């Protein structure tokens, strides 16, 4: 069984700042990692995914994430945040052979952007 940890429940930055949202997982086999964003009162929206190849993956709206097997991490980054990036971000992991049947979501990180 895999686990996923998002160590920061809340992150606050100023508009234009860079930000990194942390995600660590534990699982012994090949894994599928993804990030989702949830704006207030809405459903989750897919940002990006990784399961093989280049460990740095690009997503929508300038987001990128880097997979590190040695650190068991998949941190999300953005170079310059906009007020519209204020939302809750969820990291999700699932064993590559099981797909979403065994998906586990982190508890989420609430990102607040100050003007």
């Amino acid at each position, binding site marked *: 069984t895999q686990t996923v940890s998002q160590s920061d*429940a809340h992150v606050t930055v100023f508009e234009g700042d860079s930000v990194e949202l942390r995600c660590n997982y534990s699982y012994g086999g090949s894994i*599928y990692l*993804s990030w*989702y964003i949830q704006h207030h*009162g*809405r*459903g*989750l*929206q*897919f940002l990006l*995914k990784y399961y093989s190849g280049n460990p740095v993956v690009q997503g929508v709206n300038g987001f990128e994430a880097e997979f590190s097997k040695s650190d068991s991490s998949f941190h999300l980054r953005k170079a310059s945040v906009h007020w519209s990036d204020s939302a809750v971000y*969820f990291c999700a992991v*699932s064993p590559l052979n*099981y*797909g*979403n*049947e065994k*998906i586990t*979501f*982190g*508890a*989420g990180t609430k990102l607040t952007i100050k003007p």
Partner: protein
Amino acid sequence: DMKVTQMPRYLIKRMGENVLLECGQDMSHETMYWYRQDPGLGLQLIYISYDVDSNSEGDIPKGYRVSRKKREHFSLILDSAKTNQTSVYFCASSFAGDEQYFGPGTRLTVL
């Protein structure tokens, strides 16, 4: 337009009443999901459906059942709702095990 819809968006029920939550998608995705979201817990998978009449329990299926008679529709049923089933429920769909498309959610309150 790729879309997942959920009805109703808000629902208040009394303990012991039956609850029906409906979900639809227009992408012909064979796989659909029901989750519940509670503060600080992320999303928990209730049921997954691989296609019509091909459903599988997720992590927290107790107290819930599902029905999928058409590929584009997936229903979540609570027989005799309990107060601890008060939550926000999300439906999602995907092509196989790939990225999921989520609906807007249903906020259910059981009094």
